[in-house]
């Protein structure tokens, strides 16, 4: 690990002006559970770590007439414990609760979870210079790729590790970004980018921009949601496949449904085709499996990760079933 300085800004504006010329020499830190590990492993070597925790009032969960606003620095633990979230947005509650361990949920934040870096074992190896780190190839392509992407790969086969992202996208969340160019609010789904856009990044955030807030619209009547995560042990692992589902359902039929998968692609993966197939029909295992299969038709598994396709079918079916 190399030494770095800590900067403690008092306002977000200080951050956007502070980092504007410095590019990668600066790294923004929220909970630090991912960033510090990257520094320790010498995957990144920033000169200054900008501690966003020094900015007051970025940790909150507020219900307003248009929806719920969540400060980016709200801890995952607080998110998981919040009664409003638990009652109205179970998908978000379940996603937050499924992250890592209690200690990491105490440290980790909502915004940090959305911005975390991939867990690809080639990316995490400081001695491997893969495309994501400016090198010439993706080592997973012909390497060990059991945990890698079946969709949206190509240049790079990481899967996005966030649990919150699929849940929040399913809940139609927006995020507010503070930028030197001015502040913007965009749908969360537009935040994430595929490797073909920029192989070195997973989202559109520039080094001098801050993800400040998450906004979720008010729930509709009879709206239900869930997040289901498949991992290889009892707890504390990243998703092999996860499914976030939101919809309005009555009599075993979804009037509308949103489905987002995690663990299968470099970005949270919306299954629009499957949604269209499922919508308005009586839910059966066959229907959900067929819909998933149809939606994952374009999947191009690597040598070791083909099992994720079928796993996605069953994880999604169970998630859908739990909402009936």
């Amino acid at each position, binding site marked *: *690990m190399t030494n770095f300085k800590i900067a403690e800004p008092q306002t977000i504006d200080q951050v956007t002006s502070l980092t504007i010329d410095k590019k990668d020499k600066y790294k923004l830190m929220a909970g630090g559970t991912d960033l510090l590990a990257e520094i320790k492993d010498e995957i990144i070597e920033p000169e200054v770590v900008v501690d966003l925790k020094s900015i007051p009032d970025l940790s909150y969960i507020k219900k307003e007439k248009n929806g719920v606003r969540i400060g980016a620095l709200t801890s995952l633990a607080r998110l998981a414990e919040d009664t409003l979230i638990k009652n109205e947005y179970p998908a978000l509650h379940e996603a937050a609760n499924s992250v890592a361990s209690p200690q990491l949920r105490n440290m980790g934040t909502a915004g940090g979870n959305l911005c975390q870096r991939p867990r690809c074992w080639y990316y995490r*190896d400081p001695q491997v210079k893969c495309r994501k780190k400016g090198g010439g190839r993706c080592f997973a392509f012909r390497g*060990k790729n*059991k945990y890698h992407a079946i969709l949206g790969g190509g240049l790079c086969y990481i899967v996005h590790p966030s649990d919150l992202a699929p849940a929040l996208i399913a809940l139609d969340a927006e995020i507010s970004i503070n930028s030197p160019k001015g502040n913007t609010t965009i749908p969360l789904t537009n935040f994430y980018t595929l490797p073909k856009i920029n192989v070195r990044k997973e989202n559109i955030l520039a080094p001098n921009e801050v993800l400040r807030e998450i906004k979720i619209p008010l729930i509709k009547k009879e709206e239900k949601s869930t997040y289901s995560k*498949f991992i*290889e042990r009892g*707890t504390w692992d990243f998703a092999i496949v996860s499914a976030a589902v939101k919809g309005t359902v009555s009599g075993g039929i979804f009037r509308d449904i949103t489905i987002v998968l995690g663990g299968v692609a470099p970005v949270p993966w919306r299954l629009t085709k499957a949604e269209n197939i499922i919508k308005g029909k009586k839910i059966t295992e066959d229907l959900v499996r067929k819909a998933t299969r149809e939606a994952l038709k374009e999947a191009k598994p690597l040598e070791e990760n083909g*099992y994720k396709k079928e796993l996605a079918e*069953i994880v999604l079916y169970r998630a859908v079933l739990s909402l009936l």
Partner: protein
Amino acid sequence: MSDAQKKEKSFQSGHKIIGKPLARHDAWDKVFGKTVYADDYFLPGMLYGKVLRSEYAAANILSIDTSEAEKLPGVKAVMTAKDVPNNETITRFGQTHSVGGFEGLYRILAYKKVRFRGEAVALVAAETEVIAQKALKLIKVDYKPLLGVFNPIEAKKPGAYKVGESESNVICSYKVRKDDVEKGFALSDVIVENTYRVPAQDHAYIEPESGVAWIDDDGVITIRVSTQVIEHFREVAEVLGLPHNRVRVIGTMIGGGFGGKEDITVESYLALLTWKTKRPVKLTYTREESILAHGKRHPYFMKYRTGATNDGKLMALEAELISDAGGYVYLSPWVLLYSTVGATGPYDIPYVKVDSYTVLTNNTFSSAMRGFGVPQVCFAYESQMDELALRLNLSPLEVRKKNYLKKGKAMATGRVLDRYVAFPETAEKALAALGEQSKPKSPAEKIGRGIASGMTSYGRMVFLHDTSRSYVGLDMDGSVTVRCGVQDLGGGQSSSLAQIAAEVLGVPMKDIKVYIADTALTPLAGTTTATRQLYMSGNATLKAAKEIKKNLLNKAADILEVKPESLDLQDKKVVVKEAPDQTIPLTDVIATCASDGIPLYNVAQFNAPFRELIDFKTGQGQVFPDFTFGTHAAEISVDVETGKVKVLKLVACLDVGKAINPLSVEGQLEGGTIQGLGYALMEDVVLKKGVTLTPSLSEYLIPTSLDVVDIDKVMLESGDGLGPFGAKGVGEPSVTSIAPAVVNAVCDALGIRIFDLPLTPEKIVKALKKS
């Protein structure tokens, strides 16, 4: 046995302290975080050491340029192979006793050629850790990458890439021959033949390798280190070209060893850096470095062919074992011998042929891990037993009961078991403890149960002529000091010595002080490996305490004018057994002994049975002092849609001989069972062309508290062990048979067998699809 029954039994045996479930003397300190571990030590003027490790698994080192690193302010030493007085050592069979057999090269720092990724290439000592780390980056190593070989079956072929220099990749091979195995297959009605694979397993101890070293006032290089073997001081001295007694090793409390701290870890590096700089040095591995740099449980390929008659009697067993030793020899030949002798399991088989090989590759080296080659073969032979049961339409218990070894019977190596063999007892009790079978909670859930039996040695191989020593001394107030060079791994090694001394000398536990693990001050007690400390040092301590007791009772007999045999020591008093009211305070007898010049201390040595080497052509002979027998039982559920296994019930039933401290024994049974459960279901050091892809605990998964259930510990106490009070060893036996029990349970649930560990969800789904 219930707690009440245990209490009853202990009372009947007349023991006051032995057999009691006592909280260990150091338990509270650990709970409150007060226990001092290796990395907690800071010395004035201390430097920080770092190790530069090879980026390649196979490469020639063309040149190393350290000049830039040396120029960096704060760097006090940079060392490469050329700076090490004796960089190469050769290990041979035998320790106190040279027995030949194989030779293994061991290097402190890589020289000319690297053999695995992570091999130590250079050392740095600097004023801070950050400077040391920076210096590593300034060392320029010019490598010429080589082809390498990463699979032991490939490496074994003629013409394969040579991992070492001129020596063969095959380090050594063993044979067991009992009659003509083909005859046995001719007599068999059913033959099952399968190939099994097991991965490398990491010890994943909570404490990575760590130590500090300094030069004391007399010029002795002193190393305080987390180790299972303080007696590596001799090898460290030889590296430096110093007399053995100029290197002193002090062991710290250990945050887990499991065999991973049996080989030298940081000691030689610390000694070299402190010797070069004349300043104290600390070196602690990161987790990633720990996983890259220490030996793993050997991956094995195992071909098994087992034959039986229609009524279930085993007739023949043929096995070929190939283990992946990785880049250097380390303990591979010994581990392989354990596997070879253990290849037939606890079964009486008339015709046997075993061939085994351990082979160098460019993977991370393999070495000791809890069970030492036995869990691998147990997975194979116990899978075979269930396959046979299936073919013969017998229950797993029935087929085993027809074949278990019994007291008086010989193993395939000709060794006659001369003590109680807890079969079928442990199997029947383990299975019974599972109780009624659970019901599936959903249509996707299938329930299954399985058992597996194992026999695991305790005590080192008898041709090593193993010994241990312990000092016991009484002070004037009746308090007792024990000095014994045991390393305490957290298994209660020092606590049980205190119990033994307290029991024999009739003093309470609080009056015992144990000093451990110091090569300069405690009598050398050998390694804390091979499940040997209670057996060896427990006996040495027992012997020493008994000598003192004899002196005390003789003196008391003089005073009371009775025979010494009529007296005993209890509650710091000498009591007349037949007239318990008649007592003398212990301190009075001590005072008289002191005044009369009767020794109040004793240093005792305990020798294990000494035997000569086995016959390497046939494998016939005795290798181990004795065995611990046991059976694990498991009930699991499998989600047939996702392939995920959930453990519902686990039972560990072992004949522990005598539980000196039942709480410590339970701790071992739980720990071993969980470690073996990880081996069965998730632990897998993934390597691709020698590159470890799972170098941290976020990739290398071990069981969490949510992956285990309350383990039912069924302790049998035959009293027929070689240890003190009839105890046997349990540290390693606790891990042996759990993985095959779980695998057999999964097979029972699904009707299909998986032949390679671990049983990940993906593997199970694939196997289900195939069937």
